[in-house]
C-alpha cells in the first residue's frame, strides 16, 4: 500500500497515451501561437528594432529549455516561482537558476477544470493543467517551487503542485506598513535561504549575495532605461516592450540585461531620428490588472495595438511585466544583515500586489497607477481582469474613482483563457479607443 505522502491527491484519471496526445496537441498549438504572435508583432512596426530578434528567439521556450537542461546536467539546480515575492537574489546567490512558472496556455486551463471548478482563476487552472501533462518546460525542470501565498488561487495552487514538487511556501503579510510584518517577512526569507542552501548544497555567502544583488540591480537599470524611453513619442510598440520584460522571467539575467541595453541603444538612435513605432498622436494606453502570460494570453495587448483606431501601450501595471523589475534592491552597507533587510524590503514594501490592504485600500498600487498615468502621459486605462481573479476585480471601483478625478477614462475588460471572445473584446476595445481619439478627432 502507498504511504499517504506518496499518494497523489489531485491526479487526473488519464492514460499515458491520453496525456501524450494532449501534450503534443497543446504544444503544437502553442508553437503556432508563438510564431503567429511574433509575426503579428513584426508587422505592427515596420521598423521594428533589430534587437528584438533576440527576444523573439528566447520567447520560444525551446532555446531556454535546452540551456536549463544542460545546466542541470552540470549539477545546477532550478528553482521555480509563482509570484514576484520570491527573492531571486537568494536563488542566484546559491548558484541556482530562478524561473517563473505561471502558465499562459489557454488549452491547459481546460484540463485544470477537471480538478478545480471553472470559477477558479484561469491562470491557476492553466498552471495545474500544464503540470498534469508536463507542458511547461520550466515547471518540469524546477527542482523546487517557491510559492508566495498571495491570493487564494496561488495559495491553493501550491497545495495541488505539492503532489509533484517540493513547495517552499512563503506567507505574505496582508498589511505591509508595520514593523511586525517586516520582521515576519525577514524570518520567512531566512527559512527560504536555508531551504535553498539545503537543496543546492551551496552556502549563500556575503560575496555571492552581493554579486547576485548587483546582477539584478543592473537588470533593473536596463529595465528602467527602457521604460524611460517609452515616456516620449512611441519608439517601441507596447507588446515588444512587454515581451522584453516578460522574458526576464525565464532568461539568463546577465544576458537579458546586455540585450536590453542593446535594445535601448537602438531605441535612443531611433528617437534621435524621430523614427516612431506608430504615429505620435496614437492614443496612449496603460493596462493594469491580472497578469498577462506569454504565449496565449497575448490576446488583449494584440487587440489594443492592432485595433482600428489603433492604440499603443506605453505602460502597464502588471506583475507579469513592469512590476517585475522596477524596484532595485537598495543596499547601504554590504553586510549580510543589511543585504537581507534590503531584499526583504524590496520584495515586500515595494510590491503593489492587490493582496495588500491598508487603512486606505491598496494605496501603494493606486498611487503608482496615478504616477504612471502622469509620467507616461497615458490617455486611457484598460483594467484587465480574468474571471475568477477576485483581488483585481474588487479593487476596480477604487481605482476607477481616482482615475475619474483625473478625467482619465478607464475601461473594465473582463475575459477568460479562451480565443473565442476576441470579436466582442475587439468591439469593446475599439469603442474605447474611438472614445479616446474622439477627444481630438471627428
Amino acid at each position: 500500500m502507498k504511504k499517504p505522502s506518496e499518494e497523489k491527491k489531485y491526479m487526473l484519471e488519464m492514460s499515458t497515451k491520453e496525456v501524450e496526445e494532449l501534450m503534443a496537441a497543446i504544444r503544437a498549438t502553442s508553437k503556432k501561437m508563438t510564431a503567429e504572435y511574433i509575426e503579428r508583432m513584426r508587422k505592427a512596426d515596420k521598423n521594428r528594432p533589430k534587437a528584438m530578434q533576440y527576444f523573439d528567439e528566447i520567447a520560444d521556450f525551446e532555446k531556454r529549455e535546452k540551456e536549463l537542461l544542460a545546466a542541470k546536467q552540470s549539477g545546477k539546480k532550478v528553482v521555480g516561482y509563482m509570484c514576484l515575492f520570491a527573492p531571486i537574489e537568494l536563488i542566484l546567490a546559491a548558484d541556482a537558476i530562478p524561473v517563473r512558472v505561471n502558465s499562459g496556455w489557454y488549452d491547459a486551463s481546460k484540463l485544470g477544470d477537471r480538478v478545480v471548478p471553472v470559477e477558479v482563476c484561469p491562470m491557476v487552472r492553466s498552471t495545474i493543467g500544464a503540470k498534469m501533462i508536463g507542458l511547461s518546460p520550466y515547471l518540469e525542470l524546477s527542482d523546487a517551487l517557491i510559492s508566495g501565498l498571495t491570493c487564494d488561487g496561488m495559495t491553493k495552487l501550491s497545495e495541488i503542485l505539492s503532489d509533484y514538487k517540493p513547495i517552499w511556501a512563503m506567507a505574505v503579510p496582508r498589511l505591509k506598513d508595520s514593523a511586525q510584518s517586516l520582521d515576519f517577512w525577514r524570518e520567512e526569507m531566512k527559512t527560504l535561504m536555508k531551504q535553498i542552501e539545503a537543496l543546492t548544497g551551496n552556502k549563500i555567502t556575503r560575496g555571492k549575495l552581493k554579486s547576485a544583488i548587483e546582477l539584478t540591480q543592473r537588470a533593473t537599470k536596463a529595465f528602467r532605461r527602457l521604460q524611460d524611453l517609452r515616456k516620449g513619442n512611441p519608439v517601441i510598440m507596447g507588446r515588444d516592450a512587454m515581451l522584453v520584460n516578460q522574458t526576464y522571467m525565464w532568461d539568463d539575467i546577465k544576458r537579458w540585461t546586455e540585450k536590453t541595453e542593446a535594445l535601448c541603444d537602438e531605441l535612443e538612435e531611433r528617437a534621435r531620428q524621430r523614427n516612431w513605432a506608430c504615429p505620435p498622436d496614437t492614443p496612449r494606453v496603460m493596462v493594469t490588472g491580472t497578469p498577462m502570460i506569454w504565449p496565449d494570453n497575448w490576446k488583449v495587448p494584440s487587440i489594443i495595438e492592432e485595433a482600428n483606431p489603433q492604440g499603443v501601450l506605453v505602460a502597464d501595471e502588471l506583475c507579469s511585466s513592469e512590476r517585475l523589475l522596477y524596484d532595485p534592491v537598495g543596499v547601504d552597507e554590504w553586510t549580510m544583515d543589511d543585504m537581507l533587510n534590503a531584499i526583504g524590503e524590496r520584495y515586500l514594501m515595494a510590491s503593489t500586489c492587490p493582496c495588500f490592504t491598508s487603512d486606505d485600500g491598496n494605496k501603494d498600487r493606486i498611487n503608482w497607477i496615478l504616477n504612471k498615468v502622469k509620467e507616461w502621459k497615458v490617455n486611457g486605462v484598460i483594467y484587465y481582469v480574468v474571471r475568477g481573479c477576485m483581488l483585481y476585480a474588487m479593487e476596480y471601483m477604487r481605482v476607477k474613482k481616482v482615475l475619474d478625478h483625473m478625467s482619465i477614462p478607464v475601461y473594465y475588460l473582463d475575459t477568460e483563457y479562451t480565443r473565442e471572445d476576441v470579436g466582442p473584446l475587439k468591439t469593446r476595445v475599439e469603442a474605447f479607443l474611438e472614445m479616446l481619439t474622439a477627444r481630438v478627432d471627428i
Partner: protein
Amino acid sequence: MEEPPRKEDVEYWRWQEYRRVFAEKKWRNKDVITAGIDVGSVGSKAVIMIDGEVYSWGIMRTGSNSPDSAKKVLSWAMEGTGLRLDDIKYIVGTGYGRVNVPMANKAITEIACHAKGANYIWGPSVRTVLDVGGQDIKAIRCDETGRVVSFLMNDKCAAGTGRGMEVFADLLKIPIEKIGEVSLNVAEEPPPVSCTCVAFAKTEAISLLRKGWSKEKVLAAYTHAMAIRMSNLVKRVGLEREFVITGGQSKNIGIVSRIEKILGVKCLPMPNWRENGLDPMVAGAIGAALFAKALYEKEHKN
C-alpha cells in the same frame, strides 16, 4: 400518407424584414450621398443619406456570411432609387461584422454609431443610450454632440437580448412583433423569472406553464426579468437624462414600459419613423452614414 403540417413549423420568432425609400426626395450627383451599413449578429441594416438626411433604408436578417449580408442589404436600400454603388461617396461599416463590409471606406464600432445615431434621431439632449441588439446589450453615455463618454457592454451571452426574445416567441408561439403587447396583457405584474439565462429561463418557463400560468403571465415574467437586467446595465453606466432606447427592442413596448418604470424615467418618445425615416432600429446605421458624411467632408476639405 401525407402528414398534416405541424404547428411547430410556424416560425414565430421570424421578424419582418422591411425597407423604405423617400422617393419624393431627389438625389443629384453633386449631393454628398453616404451610406451606413450595420451588420449585426441577427439583423443587417443599411441607411443611405443625402446631405445628412435619411433617403432610404432596409433591414434584413444577417446570413451566415457577413460580406454577403452587407452587400444584400445595401442593394436592397438602393433598389429602385436609380443609385449605383459609385454614386455613394463614402460608406462606413459598423456592427459585429464591420470589418467584413467589403465596400466600406472605414469601420467604426456600433457603440460610437448608436450614440451618434441617437443624437441625430432625438437631438442634442440625449445623454444615455441603451442599445439592445440581437446578441448583446450596450449602455452608452454621450455628450451633446453624440460623442461617447463612457459605455458598458454585456457579451458572450444572449440573456436580455433580442435573441432571447426570439426564443420566447417560439416557445410561447406568439409572433415576435406582438410579444411586447402580449406581455403587458396581465392583470398584475408577476415576479420576474429567477434567471435571465435563455437556456435556464426556457426551462423555468416550461415549468410555469405546466403549473397553469397563462402564456401572457409567463411572457410578462420573462420580459420583466430582461427589463431588470437591461436597467441594471444603465444604472451601472450612470443614467443621465435624456434617455433613449435603440436597436430591435426599442419597438418592444413590453420592454420599454418596464424599463421606464424600473428606472423612473420616460424615454424620449418614439419618433414618427415611418414618415421621417428616424427609425431607432437602424440608429447604428444612421450614425454610420453620418460619420461617413463627416469623414468624406474632412477628406475633401482641401
